[in-house]
């Protein structure tokens, strides 16, 4: 087969600093091939993609080499030709920033139509083009496309916007589609759906695809051939199979070694069934949201529904679920930053529901919450020492010297150099900031720490280091951790028990190994089948990955909230009622399921 694209010795230079940001990149791309590009953040995936579509940042220039498209030198083409024939026409580009890719003041459909009209140059009637847009929206599995056509970008979820941008790219029937990091902002289930969709579309529209991402497991799933990038140049290129089974370069070997294993690695947690330190019964929380379509009326969003759990002293409990399932609301409820509408909370045998001031003050010290965002959750104008001592200044009567001593000892415990005491956070990395957050929490000698997506913004290595810090501290202080996260690989490594949340409820709760190997709820299977991993996933995507997204939280009735995405649900049935957890085996709780839904 002929080459659609060939890149020869391509280098990019930053005009202001004269640094080469991309160095001597060469590869060939055959028609209908899917080429995967894998590299850490900053390795040059985006720059390579942008060079191919001729959409480079202004300060960058091609300093050597050539891109040939269909046998034609791109450097010989005029800007006019590039605009009329290539960019957004023969070569389409989709990036990670789908949610901001369309004008918020027009409907999604209107803007897709605008592009269709601009490509078509008035040969086809608007009505026909509109039908084309709608049928493409249907192809990318946007539900009720005729209606969604008229909706605004702000009414689309991240996953739907990414689908809409795929339509945008397909409108010109491009020969080459450059998809740069398009699954990055998406939940695992949605990301898995998008990847499945890309493959279907390739077969349907005969599009050649360049697909880049920092996750090797994700790219491996879709690509025929792979390029591994590092620091702006290619480390290794070969067929996907060859690279993953028989890597040549050290960097690739390292990359494969650092990719989390889910099933092929043994996990070993002690059995921790001590006394419950924290016990939550029947927590629920609803929010009132103004109804945009009606004057002065509200609807209810049930963020957390009938949530009960016992947390054992010294354990690591994981709570996982997709975005919007109520995880963060739950963490605010547990830390009593917000009141739950119903239910009770008992800490160390003491019931806190009576809101006794002293008890709550004590509880606030004993339970610390560390948040996701290391950049905005810490004050930027205070010294690191001051930030860490904050809690003591409020809660204790220690003298200044005693406080400083304590801060310094905690700093060394979490691995922060004592020289940093008088410095500011400016320019510090995410993981450094999270260490400061941890020190700030530890200074109050808590019993329980809730980590709400604390590690999600960090890269693999930083995560690894913080996890081992957590377990050191735990061993010393007999701490209990609650990891709230959407990252299944992280939870697999660090938690002995895992609760799966869907639409505000627990649908399954089990020990780590039981949940991953013998899960009982259809939703858990859907989640597990989407984990990007290099080992063999016992849950087959073709069986368990369904299209569709979580339902609108305002539309939850009494029926099983997963039925719209459940592979077992039969359309003619009415759906089971959410009944609550049943213990199917000691310590393995599964939502009562499959009663009236045809399973």
């Amino acid at each position, binding site marked *: 087969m002929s080459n659609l694209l060939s890149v020869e010795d391509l280098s990019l230079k930053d005009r202001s600093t004269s640094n080469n940001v991309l160095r001597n990149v060469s590869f060939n791309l055959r028609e209908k091939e899917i080429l995967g590009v894998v590299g850490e953040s900053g390795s040059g995936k985006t720059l390579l993609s*942008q060079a191919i*579509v001729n*959409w480079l940042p202004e300060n960058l220039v091609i300093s050597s080499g050539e891109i040939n498209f269909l046998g034609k030198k791109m450097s010989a083409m005029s800007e006019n030709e590039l*605009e009329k024939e290539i*960019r*957004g*026409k023969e070569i*389409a*580009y989709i*990036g990670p*920033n789908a949610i*901001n*890719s*369309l*004008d*918020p*003041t*027009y409907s999604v459909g209107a803007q897709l139509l*605008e*592009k269709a009209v*601009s*490509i078509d140059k008035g040969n086809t009637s608007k009505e026909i083009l509109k039908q084309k847009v709608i049928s493409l929206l249907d192809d990318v599995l946007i539900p009720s496309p005729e209606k969604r056509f008229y909706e*605004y970008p*702000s009414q689309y979820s991240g996953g739907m916007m990414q689908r809409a941008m795929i339509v*945008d790219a397909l409108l*010109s029937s491009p020969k080459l589609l450059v998809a740069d990091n398009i699954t990055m902002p998406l939940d695992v289930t949605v990301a898995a759906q998008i990847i499945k969709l890309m493959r279907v579309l390739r077969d349907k529209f005969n599009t050649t695809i360049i697909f880049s991402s920092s996750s090797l497991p994700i790219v491996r799933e879709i690509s025929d051939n792979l390029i591994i990038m590092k620091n702006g140049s290619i480390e290794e290129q070969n067929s996907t199979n060859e690279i993953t089974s028989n890597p040549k370069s050290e960097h690739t070997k390292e990359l494969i070694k650092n990719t989390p294993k889910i099933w092929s690695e043994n996990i070993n947690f002690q059995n921790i069934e001590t006394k419950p330190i924290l016990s939550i019964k029947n927590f629920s929380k609803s929010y009132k949201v*103004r109804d*945009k*379509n*009606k*004057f*002065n009326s509200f609807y209810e969003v049930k963020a957390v529904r009938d949530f009960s759990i016992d947390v054992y002293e010294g354990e690591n409990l994981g709570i996982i679920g997709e975005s919007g399932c109520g995880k963060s609301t739950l963490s605010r409820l547990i830390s009593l930053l917000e009141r739950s509408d119903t239910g009770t909370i008992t800490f160390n045998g003491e019931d806190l529901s009576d809101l006794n001031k002293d008890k709550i003050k004590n509880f606030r010290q004993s339970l610390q919450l560390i948040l996701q965002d290391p950049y905005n959750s810490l004050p930027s104008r205070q010294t690191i020492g001051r930030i860490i001592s904050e809690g003591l200044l409020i809660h204790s009567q220690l003298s200044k010297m005693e406080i400083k001593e304590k801060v310094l000892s905690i700093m060394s415990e979490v691995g922060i150099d004592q020289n940093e005491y008088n410095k500011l956070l400016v320019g510090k990395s995410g993981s450094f900031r999270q260490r400061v957050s941890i020190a700030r929490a530890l200074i109050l000698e808590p019993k329980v720490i809730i980590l709400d997506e604390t590690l999600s913004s960090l890269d693999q290595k930083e995560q690894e280091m913080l996890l081992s810090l957590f377990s050191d501290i735990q061993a010393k202080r007999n701490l209990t951790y609650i990891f709230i996260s959407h990252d299944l690989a992280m939870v697999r490594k660090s938690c002995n028990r895992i609760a799966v949340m869907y639409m505000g409820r627990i649908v399954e709760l089990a020990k780590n190994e039981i949940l991953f190997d013998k899960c009982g709820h259809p939703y858990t299977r859907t989640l597990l089948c989407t984990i990007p991993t290099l080992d063999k996933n016992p849950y087959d995507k073709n069986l368990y990955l369904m299209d569709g997204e979580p339902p609108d939280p305002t539309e939850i009735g009494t029926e099983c909230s997963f039925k719209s995405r459940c592979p077992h649900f039969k359309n003619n049935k009415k759906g089971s009622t959410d009944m609550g957890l049943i213990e199917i085996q000691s310590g393995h709780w599964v939502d009562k399921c499959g009663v009236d839904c045809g399973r």
Partner: protein
Amino acid sequence: MHLAGQFVRRILQGVVVVLITTFLIFSILRIVPGDPVRLIVGGMAPDNLVEEIAQKMGLRDPIPVQFGRYLSQVVQGDLGNSYQRPKNGMMGQGGDFNANMDVEMAEVSDLILERLPYTLQLAGLALLISLIISFPLGISAGLKPKGFISKIAFFISSVFVSIPNFWLGIVLALFITIKLGLLPSIGYQNFAYTILPAIVLAVETCPFIIRTISVSFAEISQEYFIKSGKVRGLTRNGVIYRHTLRNASIPLLNLLGIQLSTLLGGVIVVEYIFDYPGLGQLTIYAVLQRDFPLIQGIAMVTSALYVGLNIAVDLITYSIDPRLES
């Protein structure tokens, strides 16, 4: 539906604003020194007569009572009659004792309606001129914040901001009307008399409009949905016309809503300088003559205009960007 509800709510809020403004003006007029009756009856009238007439006119009642009476009139569509201006248009002379007590006084609403079109014409033309100047300058400055035009725009704005309107008015009248004889300026006989005062007003508002346009254009141009238009295959001009302009017009519309008050302030000065027969000039005379009903009527009408325009601006911006509607 929702928009209609929003609309009703805004109108109600607007009515409250107008009422409060009117009440404030109403009270201040009666608290600060200066008795209108003395001006009505003339300087020679005896004090007891002044007192008698004031009582008869209700001016000695407590302010809330007077205001209630005034409001009940207003809801029937009657803004009252001027204290000083007779119906036939002839002004009584202040010194003539009792000169205009038996002449029928002009209705405030007639006086306002007669003047309002002139002021609207002036303000409209001023706005048009400043938009014609500001749009090309602001847009090119916004698209290329470091470019040459951006510097010109900044220069023009700085110069315009530092020119006092009364000075410019006098200079233009002297130079263009008297020296060059190009355009008329004092009084009003035909449309040409609006041009010079409008230019003075336009110079006053231009800098704000240029700045708003260039800043919002520069900001919107940085949005990903604008920058990525190129890679989606849209043309540069298409993106500017259909997306940048549309999004940048929201801050501009909001500014225009607010600028109206500056414009009205400018109108008073400019109409006075050019002896232009609009609402501004009427206001000045009304204040000098302590013509309470007229001042109140003008205050009410202008604040209603202001509120109405801002509601219109909001409705337009909602229809441009549905996210604002919350």
